């Protein structure tokens, strides 16, 4: 008798996978779609921002955390300690799959950034691992959002612009709570969020690249950029 049948093991493994697959049947897909105005973002490609400044975006990533799904009956379904690093270079990272709530969704809430507790409790793992380059090693704290590229308007070496925005301490808290109402006719299975980079430059106030090509630490300028980019999200019409 043959004890080790290699096909048998394969079959067993397959059955295990099928079992796992059946469990999460009803899914909610939240996806992030990056734009500059109405042009989809293409990394390393020339684009023009709202002030007509020519620019090439090289990096665009940010933290979405502590998601809350609010249903039409007013219930808040929270996902505590949920951290997602949305990164333009990683298409998988731009979709978040969650269990679908029983009722229709009326709004979506999350923070753009990382809550202060996680900034203060040593080295984290997963999306918050400092190896993702979203962490200031010399001034403990997360970079909540990063936008880098080149623009002729930037009076810097190689015309580079680098925006590393973060800060959680009193007086420099750049954590932003984002609330996005969902229209009734929107699907509760598939929420598509438009993310417009133009908001960085002209959200609450005008911050053209020419004026501030570099922001690398928490503080006043970081707060102004955070106030601007807090307005970059809108729900896309179905």
């Amino acid at each position, binding site marked *: 008798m043959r004890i080790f049948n290699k096909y048998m093991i394969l079959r*067993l493994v397959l059955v295990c996978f099928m079992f796992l697959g059946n469990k999460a049947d009803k899914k909610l897909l939240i996806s992030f779609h990056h734009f500059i105005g109405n042009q989809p973002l293409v990394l390393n490609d020339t684009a023009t921002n709202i002030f007509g400044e020519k620019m090439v975006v090289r990096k665009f990533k940010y933290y979405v955390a502590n998601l809350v799904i609010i249903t039409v009956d007013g219930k808040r379904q929270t996902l505590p300690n949920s951290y997602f690093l949305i990164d333009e270079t990683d298409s998988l990272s731009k979709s978040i799959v969650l269990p679908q709530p029983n009722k229709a969704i009326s709004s979506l809430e999350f923070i753009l950034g990382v809550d202060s507790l996680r900034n203060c*409790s*040593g*080295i*984290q793992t997963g999306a918050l691992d400092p190896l993702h380059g979203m962490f200031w*090693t*010399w001034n*403990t704290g997360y970079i909540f959002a990063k936008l880098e590229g080149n623009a002729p308007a930037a009076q810097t070496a190689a015309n580079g612009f680098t925006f590393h925005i973060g800060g959680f301490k009193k007086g420099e808290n750049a954590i932003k709570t984002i609330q996005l109402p969902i229209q009734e006719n929107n699907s509760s299975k598939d929420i598509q969020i438009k993310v417009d980079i133009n908001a960085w430059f002209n959200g609450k106030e005008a911050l053209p690249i020419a004026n501030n090509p570099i922001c690398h630490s928490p*503080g006043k300028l970081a707060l102004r950029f955070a106030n601007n980019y807090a307005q970059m999200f809108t729900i896309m019409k179905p």
Partner: protein
Amino acid sequence: MKIAVSILVSGLFIVTGIAWIQRTIPTHPIHFIVPKGWPKPLYDFSKNPITKEGFELGRKLFYDVRLSKDGQFSCASCHQQFAAFSTFDHPLSHGFNNQQTSRNAPSLQNLAWQQNFMADGGITHLDLQPLAPITAENEMAETIQNVLKKLKSDKTYQSMFRAAFGKETINTQGLGKALSQFMLLLVSNHSKYDKVMRGEDSFLLAEKLGYQIFQTKCISCHPAPFFTDFQYRNAGLPLNDYLKDYGRLKITNNAIDSLLFRVPSLRNIALTAPYGHDGRFTSLINLFDHYRKQMVLGPTTDSLFKNRLPLSNFEIGQLRAFLHTLTDTLFTKDPRFADPLYNKLLDPNHLH
């Protein structure tokens, strides 16, 4: 029947396999001893209990030059045990590509009682501290990804990480925790001063007089048992035009913090020259001269120094004698903290 048996056996095989992979290997806890009369440590040991395995992993990492980009620098390159884990006789330390650091390497001791790290206090957790020198372009100049890649491809590290943390994963968190375990045990409390306080030894006359002067003139910023109050102060060191280091200001963006640096510990001070955040004082005599004559009083200079710090030649002599009692050679020669390879060399079994 045949099929049923083969399912059963292969099932058992898989379960045993998984159990084997997931098995927890017992670790050997090391009890962290708080010296008598010292306060409760600030480090949260419940999040990172010290074990023999974790400590030995941290020790290997501390002495491993592969943590740097070009394989020339380990943590120990700038934190040398014989200099109480500071850089011996260097105002600034060496880094990648013939560069220099921007600050004098501090001694590493009694870190379990320290909340913030770096002369500007920018780093708020010991586990996070090593990431700064590893990634700084003028220090070890490496990326965390590359460090992890090097560790993951090394069989010894694979088994040491598994022994320390009970799992295969070699990640940033494990790296930081292991290094912390090594650094936390760097406790210096066996200087002559400590022995005198415990009644095991007595001061010579000059040391005793120096201790009295110390208590009237130095103790407000350098209180025992750590000989620092861990506060940020401007001790009248004018800005260096080349380094342009404004200290704490860089972290808080607050003008009142301009030129403030953390008060350094005076433990093992006789081994940690040069002095000052940028190593501008080559000897203790330079330092005393700064305090009594050269101090530059600016808008953020500590109010304790309104009249500078008057010290007579006699007082300087006695103070020197006292400061030398803070040297802890048991600490600087403790074989537990030495390069693990160096210990092997000393092992008689390896001497031919």
